[in-house]
């Protein structure tokens, strides 16, 4: 039995177990339902709003962008919190203490964080398709969804892992993780077209993957005429693949190095210090 493959297979089991436990937990169910209620509620209130320059209604235009944002948000904030917390509570240390444990641990994280998108998507897509018409212009759009989501995952998850690896404590994920990601979401053309912003902000927005995931999702859901609303009047599919691809490759190269460095520094005293700090914090 090859120990590395054994570890990867244990990691997959771990990811699956974590996923099943998460779906069964009322806490996580509550979170999924909360985001779904917020999204669908917003779309429902504005179900008759027409989007300027097209004959499309707001839900059709906004849903793909919101899905894109939720994907990016989920796979950045999810791993960032998970890693920061599991550094502190000793989960990581447990895996450091068994042979090839870290390979298993990160395999598990990768699978669990990816799978977590499924319930998130389902609770939004199912009611949306029941409530609104003309969400998917052409069924072939699902094929586009099928590559945009995995590529988007690979482009954004390393960012979350890096934040989780580098933050000094879980409480800092809000400042160092949530805030930049919210700013990124704000300028990524999800709530209003990016062209309404200043030129330099548009440039920054287009450096980060979130804009491109949302653009890719819009290209999947909307009719071709809607491309007229985008920068350059095109879906820019090639650029989407290239930008997300670069993020994915850089992430795949940098993340393992940073994670290895972080894991090397893990000690029992660190876990104990975190526990003491949290007791202080609660008091």
């Amino acid at each position, binding site marked *: *039995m*090859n*120990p590395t493959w*054994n*570890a990867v297979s*244990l990691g997959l*089991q*771990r990811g699956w*177990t*974590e996923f099943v*436990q*998460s779906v069964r*937990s009322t806490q996580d169910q509550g979170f999924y339902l909360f985001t779904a209620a917020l999204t669908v509620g917003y779309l429902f209130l504005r179900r008759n709003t027409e989007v300027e320059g097209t004959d499309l209604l707001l839900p059709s235009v906004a849903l793909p962008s919101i899905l894109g944002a939720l994907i990016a948000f989920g796979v950045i904030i999810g791993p960032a919190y998970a890693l920061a917390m*599991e550094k502190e*509570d*000793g*989960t990581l*240390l*447990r*895996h*450091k*203490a*068994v*042979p*090839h*444990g870290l390979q*298993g641990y990160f395999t598990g994280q990768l699978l669990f964080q990816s799978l977590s998108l499924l319930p998130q998507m389902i609770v939004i897509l199912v009611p949306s398709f029941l409530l609104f018409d003309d969400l998917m212009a052409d069924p072939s759009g699902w094929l586009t969804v099928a590559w945009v989501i995995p590529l988007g995952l690979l482009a954004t998850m390393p960012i979350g892992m890096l934040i989780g690896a580098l933050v000094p404590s879980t409480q800092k994920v809000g400042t160092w993780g949530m805030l930049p990601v919210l700013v990124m979401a704000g300028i990524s053309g999800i709530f209003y077209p990016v062209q309404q912003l200043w030129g330099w902000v548009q440039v920054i927005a287009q450096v980060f993957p979130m804009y491109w995931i949302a653009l890719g999702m819009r290209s999947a859901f909307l009719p071709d005429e809607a491309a007229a609303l985008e920068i350059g009047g095109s879906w820019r599919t090639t650029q989407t693949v290239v930008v997300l691809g670069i993020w994915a490759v850089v992430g795949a190269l940098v993340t393992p190095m940073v994670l290895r460095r972080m894991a090397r520094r*893990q*000690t*029992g*005293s660190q*876990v*104990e210090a*975190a*526990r003491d700090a949290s007791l202080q914090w609660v008091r």
Partner: protein
Amino acid sequence: MEAVVTVRDLRMRYGDNDVLTGVDFDIRRGEVVCLLGPNGAGKTTTIEILEGFRIRSAGDVTVMGQDPAHADDDWRAHTGVVLQSWRDHPRWTPRRLLTQLGGYFAPYSTPERPRPHDIDLLLETVGLTELADRKIATLSGGQRRRLDVAVGIVGRPELLFLDEPTAGFDPQARRDFHGVVRSLADSEGTTILLTTHDLDEAEKLADRVLVLAAGRIVADDTVDGLARRLEGESQVRWTAAGRRHVEAVPDATKFVRNLFDELGDAVEDLEVRRASLEDAYLALVQQHEAGHGEAAARLFAEVTG
């Protein structure tokens, strides 16, 4: 016997604070060794260096034939670490977690030492059979520590590290735990290194005690050996004709023989106490905590030397 752990002139410095100033010791195969010392003496630092979790400043360390700072996964497969968990894996059950973590040891199984442990047997050993399928979040502190021990030994390690394993245990849990450690050493032949600040615990568990103070080993012997080195008298207490007597004598054996010769069956409730190592250790701890670590270490080395 062959040495499993060799430590020579181990030094550790954080910033300009010297925590270890030249630690030397050996551990032989099958021994249960206790690293005893006041809080802040450097016990955790020492054990974390041996576990490969912390990089030392200087010195030579060999653990199971490798330098733990650069040891590989094969080395990991033969060592076990009992961690002080806190709130990890709250949604998992003990059985699921042990099965998952034990799985990593399967490639290292040999006919003489099948790995990992049988999970049911392991749960029974640490007394968690009834709680095996409950969420870990619902376990009490003591039950969690028993799970920590189970995780530490699931791979049937040849060498096991435990850092302050009974901190926060109630007396019953502590007693059960001592039983588990002794049986590991006796039936599995596991070499064990544990840290404690409790002399009583060291006495119950260890074949040999290393007293760590002011960043170095100030005594290295069995608890009995240490006690014998302490010069001084023994205390003999007995009751005769309804009266309680206490006497301090240099040679207790001789004194007691004379006592029986004189009084015979009239001697009741006989009790002999050696000049106490406890007192010497307590003095060490108190001085250490008062900030006179160096002086305390020298004094302790002197009285036991």
